């Protein structure tokens, strides 16, 4: 059992939907990013997705691309991302942390070394956008063996034939991508998402969390009500990019969390 499994078990017992928030590690700098991260649990965030910046984020829209650029320009590295997690863990031993990003910075560090360091830092799960099930031997299998959840994306193009393959080595939760497209683009529509979530839930006991295209408390409520929870990323990252004070960023996160939790 990881912190992710524990959190979803607790939410289920409380009949509550999960609210997952994404921020880019080191955006705009490590100190601000860490201050925001530390404030997320009190703002109602159940699971934190911490972005690892990459120069070539093929699945991300402009908002998260720019966040990655700010972070890298500020000198962010994998070492610093892991240190941020350790610093966060010093004051919070319960909130699950999922690292999200692309494979090359992990591959470059070496998979074994990365997994040891990630586990030691207090990371609970990984979402690696460019590792489909066809490449499970790369990181997914070793990550599970190291005691980390490997959370997979299911998408509108994941048809019935392919779904079992996607679910096979997934753990923690299933991240359903609500739209074909990049992060922060088209708005998710609850009536489109509901049957897709039902289709996935018919094949797995894992919680299904919906992300991409959710930016307001109302949308968070609407989407969370047809799934086990929702993820908001670009809307939060946009506030950070606009240099809003930490307190204001967190107030907006709290409003989004309230939306999801009222579902």
């Amino acid at each position, binding site marked *: 059992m990881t912190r992710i499994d524990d959190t979803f078990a607790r939410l289920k017992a409380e009949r509550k939907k999960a609210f997952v928030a994404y921020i880019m590690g080191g955006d705009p700098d490590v100190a601000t990013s860490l201050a925001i991260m530390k404030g997320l649990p009190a703002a109602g965030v159940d699971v934190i997705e911490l972005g690892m910046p990459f120069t070539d984020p093929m699945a991300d829209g402009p908002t998260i691309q720019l966040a990655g650029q700010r972070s890298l320009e500020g000198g962010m590295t994998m070492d610093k991302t892991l240190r941020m997690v350790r610093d966060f863990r010093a004051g919070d031993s319960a909130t699950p942390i999922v690292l999200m990003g692309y494979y*090359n910075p992990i*591959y470059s560090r070496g998979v074994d070394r990365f997994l040891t360091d990630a586990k030691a830092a207090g990371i609970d799960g990984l979402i690696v*956008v*460019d590792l489909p099930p066809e490449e499970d031997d790369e990181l997914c299998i070793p990550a599970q063996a190291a005691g980390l959840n490997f959370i997979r994306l299911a998408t509108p193009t994941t048809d019935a034939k392919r779904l079992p393959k996607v679910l096979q080595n997934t753990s923690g939760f299933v991240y359903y*991508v609500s739209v074909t497209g990049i992060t922060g683009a088209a708005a998710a529509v609850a009536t489109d998402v509901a049957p897709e979530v039902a289709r996935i839930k018919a094949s797995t006991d894992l919680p299904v969390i919906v992300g991409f295209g959710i930016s307001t408390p109302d949308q968070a409520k609407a989407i969370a009500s047809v799934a086990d929870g929702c993820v908001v990323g670009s809307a939060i990252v946009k506030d950070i990019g606009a240099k809003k004070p930490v307190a204001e960023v967190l107030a907006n996160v709290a409003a989004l969390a309230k939306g999801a939790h009222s579902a």
Partner: protein
Amino acid sequence: MAEDGINSFMTGPDEQGRFGLFGGRFVSETLMPLILDLEERYEFAKTDPTFWAEMDWLWKHYVGRPSPLYFAERMTEHLGGAKVYMKRDELNHTGAHKINNVLGQIILARRMGKTRIIAETGAGQHGVATATVCAKFGLQCVVYMGAHDVERQAPNVFRMKLLGAEVIPVTSGRGTLKDAMNDALRDWVTNVRDTFYCIGTVAGPHPYPAMVRDFQSIIGKEVRWQMAEQEGEGRLPDTVIAAIGGGSNAMGLFYPFLDDPSVNIIGVEAGGKGVDDRMEHCASLTGGRPGVLHGNRTYLLQDPDGQILEGFSISAGLDYPGIGPEHAWLHDIGRAKYVSITDAEALEAFQLCCKLEGIIPALEPSHALAHVMKIAPDLPRDHIIVMNMCGRGDKDIFTVAKHLGQDMKV
């Protein structure tokens, strides 16, 4: 080697799309069903005689194939050693080898019922080829091009527009070829139902590296029979040389010779200002290390933390921080040798080719020619070198004039 039919170098990739360690399918889940579908459709087309009949007809009547294999007599005399042949792929319609591959992919796209074609381009050659074939078949065409390249390759941008394509300047990242590829992938992931992504080189997720190689292999296949025709039955080149950005013209020349142990294979990377710590070059094999980008594992220019670096070369067509995975494999197993040529050396070869052969080469094959100039003088007169003249230099005269300090207006 090839004699026993078992230890062939021509059987790759494997079922996972790997050439040894390299290649693979490192894409997001949204794209995975698309590339599996493409693989299935391509595997079918590959053995379908009607597919190749259509290709052959268009190659002959639309592209102008076969391209000549030309004995460069004055260049040979000047260098005083090996006999130098040029494979004249710059004489193809649109002026480069790129159209060989585009035709194949567009015919496949039509068979798959796709109505919208997207492509990335650096120097604009692949973009022009794609816009050309889309115009011929009445398909919608969108080309992603780095904002920086849009500026420095204005004639090609105008060509694409004349051909009816929409050219989208890419400002994400640093606005270069790799960013154009990122934006093309973002478009594809958004428009999955009607869109076909026509990749311009032997890179990307499986099946692209193998598919593009197969379409470009017409280059090497022609060289085989043309060499026999000119030098006698059974005569093969002793050395084949081609320039490498992503590596499609090189793979097209090399592939049909992989199982002929007597043929030396040399790929020439862009050495920019020199392959050293300054990283002002595009020599992925000689100056990079394995990593994962744009759907495949290959050698990449990257920093110690796995962040991708920008390449640097006088030639916009070689300005890419990666290289096709099959080249990475051929490099590691030692079947092909990879060297680098600097901007200055390429410029010298460019000028010599103009003066001695009356051929204005593109800056890309000028790199290959520069390496020919290095090795030919020390080789015997019966040693035959074939270099791939993969593009014509009209597009480059502005860049060359600037580097030679000449004002074009005079």
